[in-house]
């Protein structure tokens, strides 16, 4: 269980994390989403005491991280895929880390095997690819067999096999009753891994909901329509006050109404339809929608990030 209460971090005049409060429960995979610079990493660093909050507090199982008796065996963290010395071998890195908590060679070899690093464990970690570094970071997080896992962008740089591995790992750790908290800037990744999602935008929590609820809330009202008289249909719909976008394959994407309404409308005007499909907006779109609103709400001006998000739609 991780509990944050009005957690705030300011760097000079810039507020990176603004009164963030949440509860991350055990037995679930909780995703932490937000665009780059939203404050995810800063929040995670504050949870484990690497950054000092300007105000507010955060506890793990009821205690501040610095007061944990045995941090490594209570909380496993991956905050930076490159948090190792490039001149040291993966095995020595893990041995040195384990030595602080009397974690022995046997466990070191176990996590090396778990992360699929056996063949490179004796090599200098400086030669590792981003993906291998990521695996080493995850191995380090698992070293103390902790009850809580905090992983910042764990799939970053991983190959598809690695992505699936992390996904399964996160699910199985949560199934064992552990608290699993992982961040990503990809909603699609979270959709397949997380039970619960917290979305951060501009340092504030803008959504905190089970993934199902999030999907439902976000699922759109767009309808894909194909007709041999598409242009005519589009004009009529627009006159009716609906938003119609023409897609590259000639189909229309109509928002703001239902498939039934469009079907009835077409029948009344005797326009033949070749396709009529309700489209659930993807989680990714829902997420962009959310964060864009937040950005606009906060700044009162469209910044670069919001513009590019808007352009993607």
């Amino acid at each position: 269980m991780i509990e944050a209460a009005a957690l705030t971090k300011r760097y000079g005049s810039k507020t990176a994390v603004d009164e963030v409060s949440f509860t991350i429960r055990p037995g679930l995979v909780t995703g932490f989403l937000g665009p780059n610079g939203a404050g995810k990493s800063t929040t995670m660093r504050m949870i484990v005491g690497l950054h000092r909050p300007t105000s507010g507090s955060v506890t793990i199982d009821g205690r501040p991280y610095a007061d944990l008796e045995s941090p490594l065996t209570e909380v496993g963290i991956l905050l930076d895929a490159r948090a190792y010395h490039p001149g040291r071998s993966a095995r020595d890195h893990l041995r040195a880390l384990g030595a602080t908590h009397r974690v022995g060679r046997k466990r070191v070899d176990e996590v090396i095997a778990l992360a699929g690093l056996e063949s490179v464990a004796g090599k200098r970690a400086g030669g590792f690819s981003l993906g291998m570094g990521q695996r080493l970071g995850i191995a380090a997080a698992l070293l103390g067999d902790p009850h809580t896992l905090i992983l910042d962008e764990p799939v970053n740089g991983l190959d598809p096999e690695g992505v699936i591995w992390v996904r399964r790992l996160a699910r199985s750790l949560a199934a064992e009753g552990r608290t699993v908290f992982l961040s990503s800037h990809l909603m699609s990744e979270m959709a397949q891994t997380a039970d619960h999602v917290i979305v951060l935008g501009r340092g504030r929590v803008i959504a905190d909901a089970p993934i199902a609820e999030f999907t439902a809330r976000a699922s759109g009202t767009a309808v894909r329509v194909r007709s041999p008289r598409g242009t005519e249909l589009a004009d009529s719909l627009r006159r009716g006050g609906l938003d119609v976008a023409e897609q590259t394959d000639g189909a229309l994407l109509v928002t703001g109404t239902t498939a039934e309404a469009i079907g009835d409308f077409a029948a009344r005007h005797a326009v033949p339809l070749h396709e009529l499909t309700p489209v659930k907006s993807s989680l990714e779109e829902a997420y962009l929608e959310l964060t864009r609103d937040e950005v606009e709400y906060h700044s009162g001006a469209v910044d670069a990030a919001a513009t590019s998000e808007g352009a993607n739609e």
Partner: protein
Amino acid sequence: MSTPASRVAFGGLMRSKWIKLWSLRSTWWLYAITIVLFAGIAGLLALSSGDWTSSYLNPDNASFGSMAAEQIAQAKASAAASAGAQVSQEWIRWDVPVLTFAQLVVSVLGVLGIAGEYQTGAIKSTFAAAPKRTAALFSKVLVIFLASVIIGAIGIAVATATSWGVLAAHGWPIDAGDPYVWRTLGGAIAYLGFAGAFGSLIGAIVRVQAGAIPTAIGFVLILPTIASLLAGMLDAAWLYNVGQFLPYSLGNDVSTYPFGEAANAAGGASASAGDVEGPWIDPVHDGFDPATGQPDPSRDSGKISVGPAAAAVALAAWLVVGWVFAQLVTKRRDV
């Protein structure tokens, strides 16, 4: 809820740092080069000393020119008495030149030991595993101190043995029981420990290698040079005296063979030894009357000399000051 004491044992932190230090190739390379240099320079200097029978340090070779017979007898007695100290000084004269280099190596390794962690991001793992930080920092400084002492001891043992072998083969009457030799070498080893630990504290304070390494080198080599240049230019005895308390000077104080003291103890007070320094702080009697050219204490420059005991205390004070700063910034910093 009470705050339980962390179960992260200090022994575990020490073990962790020890593994970290020795699992880097650069550590082995730099330390190996240091030991080779100790042996090499000691051997070369010993070879350059030549044969005892023809050495100017051999009292039998002393020439006393046109002195009166009784003066010659006195001078001969004095030379014979201080011959032991002369030989001992010759035996370990590699010590200060090698130390000038070796202190840089151990300082830089000390800097790298901590600044390297900041630079690579490994510090995050370190502080996450030991969130109180102070114990982690202390274990790191202590490991670097110990490693520097061990390398210093090995290097100095190798150099001492090499020099002894070469000189003994050339007939030099080395007295392995000279306590001043061992005190001096002990001081040299301890100073290397200081240099490593101080370097690591600078690494902890500055944390960026590109800044910390020059800072450490500046402290060791550049600052004393500037102080002595300025003291000379401004004719400022106080600045000179301040310079005496910089680590480099203090290092020389603890690792230079105390010839005057040793010769005195042997009963051969020699005129050439000049002021005999004590272990603490003494005024330098360098005043002289320009009219007569005779020494005149009333015209002393006000300079001081720092003896080995005072120097050891001053070095410890440097470590304490460095520790207080390093600990303060380490505790507060976001990593």
